[in-house]
């Protein structure tokens, strides 16, 4: 392979402390920059695309995240063992861990991301709010005290009023985050959030916040360049969430006026600039009735970064790496406007017809329909195994088109033609969302899923002639009599789970 001549870069070999599609994303950026890669992987991830693509690999521990992807020492040792000179943490796992950023620097490795101090001041949600107050950015009412006893937290929840939300102070991505809709639920939800927080982030610290019941989730991409200039790179809307986990994201938001976009962009830039932010970060807001409130700042690359890349023509991962090499400086006229519309769908390994029950197993045939304005980010291919150790996201499908309606139309067709065998996926569910009048109108809020999709999706019916075709194929492929028809399995959909496991 012909490598780009960037031989003067400070990073010659970069270690990736992550897995799945983001590891693949980083490897591709490195390939283009002429940088060698070292994949720091767990036992479970030997059968993955990133493993096959990386130049060097080090197994850093067992299958559970605590043994490998969350283990600072193993990651550093793995990177050093293969003579890497930098580490990219991806997102999730150690990406927002200031101790990890510090450990990298202490070990003589470049951390591809913000400084340890910026992670500490913005990444800890409690500190971040103090900073926001200083910057005059509006905040959602809540409790962020050091008294973490369940008694105090319950009392504070009652003071804030229901519904309120309990969140992991070190968290993100919906883990360790629970909704308390009435007093009787407070104790259980607070304890549950503390446990999830401890197991996912290594800290049980939580905080409370008033729950806005018809808010939109709008976030601004920010980036601090090598000379310390912070710019915002417009917004993404991620209102389609379930259990506070994003499902569909888009750039830009269909709800912002140019005036609001300017105000929110300025607020995002201000807080990042105040914290001395370098590299890619995201300032998240809740937006309700024309008002915006700071939600949190994510001191890392986001899962949904591709939609920003599509409308701006920027490569955020390359920008991060070049920035870490002190070689990324914004020019005045760059990224001042966006073009068209981009949507990302997260494909999760779960059963749409069973309320999102996670699905694990070996992948069969996988096919994504390539075409203009289509992008597929995936970490697993045929014969790879989707395990229960990690996040159930197996791929991201991203489209770009000249307008939002066209992007929606394109996404539905792309999903129609995407094939994933071996595990169930949420593709039917994604299509139902994309076809929903409220989504099409762009007026969806974070309540969208619980409002319209609280019941598992009903399997579609097929016309008799198509049913006959399906039966023929079954016979041909199974080379035996058709399976016994039961009420649920007979129409092609498995129903092995109990109702209590419904998750949205």
């Amino acid at each position, binding site marked *: 392979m012909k490598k780009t001549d960037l031989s003067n870069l400070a990073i010659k070999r970069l270690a990736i402390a992550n897995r799945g599609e983001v590891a693949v994303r980083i490897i591709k950026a490195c390939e283009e920059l002429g940088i060698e890669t070292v994949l720091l992987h767990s036992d479970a991830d030997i059968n993955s695309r990133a493993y096959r693509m990386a130049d060097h690999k080090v197994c850093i521990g067992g299958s559970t995240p605590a043994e490998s992807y969350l283990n600072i020492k193993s990651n550093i040792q793995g990177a050093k063992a293969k003579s890497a000179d930098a580490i990219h943490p991806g997102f999730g796992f150690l990406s927002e861990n200031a101790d990890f950023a510090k450990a990298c620097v202490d070990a003589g490795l470049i951390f591809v991301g913000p400084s340890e101090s910026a992670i500490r001041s913005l990444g800890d949600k409690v500190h971040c709010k103090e900073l926001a107050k200083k910057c005059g950015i509006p905040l959602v009412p809540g409790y962020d005290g050091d008294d973490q006893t369940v008694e105090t937290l319950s009392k504070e929840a009652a003071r804030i009023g229901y519904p309120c939300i309990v969140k992991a102070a070190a968290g993100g991505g919906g883990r360790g985050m629970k909704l308390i809709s009435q007093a009787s639920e407070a104790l259980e939800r607070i304890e549950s959030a503390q446990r999830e927080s401890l197991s996912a982030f290594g800290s049980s610290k939580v905080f409370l916040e008033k729950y806005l019941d018809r808010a939109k989730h709008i976030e601004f991409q920010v980036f601090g360049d090598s000379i310390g200039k912070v710019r915002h790179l417009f917004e993404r809307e991620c209102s389609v969430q379930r259990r506070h986990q994003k499902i569909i994201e888009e750039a830009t938001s269909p709800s912002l006026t140019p005036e609001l976009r300017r105000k929110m962009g300025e607020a995002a830039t201000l807080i990042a600039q105040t914290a001395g932010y370098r590299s890619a970060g995201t300032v998240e807001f809740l937006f309700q009735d024309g008002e915006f409130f700071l939600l949190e700042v994510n001191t890392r690359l986001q899962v949904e970064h591709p939609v920003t890349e599509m409308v701006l023509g920027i490569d955020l991962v390359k920008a991060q790496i070049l920035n870490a090499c002190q070689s990324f400086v914004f020019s005045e006229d760059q990224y001042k406007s966006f073009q068209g519309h981009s949507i990302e769908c997260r494909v999760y390994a779960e059963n749409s017809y069973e309320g999102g029950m996670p699905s694990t197993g070996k992948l069969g045939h996988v096919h994504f329909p390539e075409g203009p304005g289509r992008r597929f980010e995936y970490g697993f291919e045929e014969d790879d195994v989707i395990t229960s150790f990690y996040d159930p996201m197996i791929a991201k499908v991203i489209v770009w088109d000249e307008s939002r309606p066209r992007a929606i139309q394109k996404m539905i067709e792309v999903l129609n033609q995407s094939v994933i065998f071996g595990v169930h996926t949420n593709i039917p569910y994604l299509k139902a969302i994309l076809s929903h009048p409220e989504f099409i109108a762009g007026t969806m809020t974070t309540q969208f899923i619980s409002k319209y999709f609280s019941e598992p999706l009903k399997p579609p019916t097929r016309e008799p002639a198509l049913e006959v075709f399906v039966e023929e194929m079954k016979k041909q*492929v199974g080379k035996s009599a058709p399976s016994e028809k039961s009420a649920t399995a007979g129409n092609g959909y498995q129903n092995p789970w109990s109702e209590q496991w419904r998750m949205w």
Partner: protein
Amino acid sequence: MIQKFEKKIGNHVHKAIAEKVGDKIWIHVNGETLVFDAETTGRRRGKVAGKDAKSNTILAPMPGKITKLFKKLGDVVTVGESVLVMEAMKMEYTLKSNMAGTIKKVAFKELDQVALGALIVEIEPTKET
């Protein structure tokens, strides 16, 4: 191995692909992915983890870790009451009882890893009077 199919229905030519993966037949047709049990020995894997309305057991609906047991042997449970919390794919799931009764058996302890379909809790139903 995938097999490709084509059939004209009305004015539309449907293109489909199908593949047998393990004991399942997967078919992609008309924008949908369908899955069926391949005819094997007659015992369907999907049934293992199934739990019908009359069941007095709580089975693991997927592999994961038990993070919290709210009930112990001899405790009384009501319909819809939380019995235990499992963690899988880094998310927590609460398993509830769907009948009133007394806990007759707790097969695991907190932090145990459980396999798909494993019996975790058995409930002695309260006698209707």
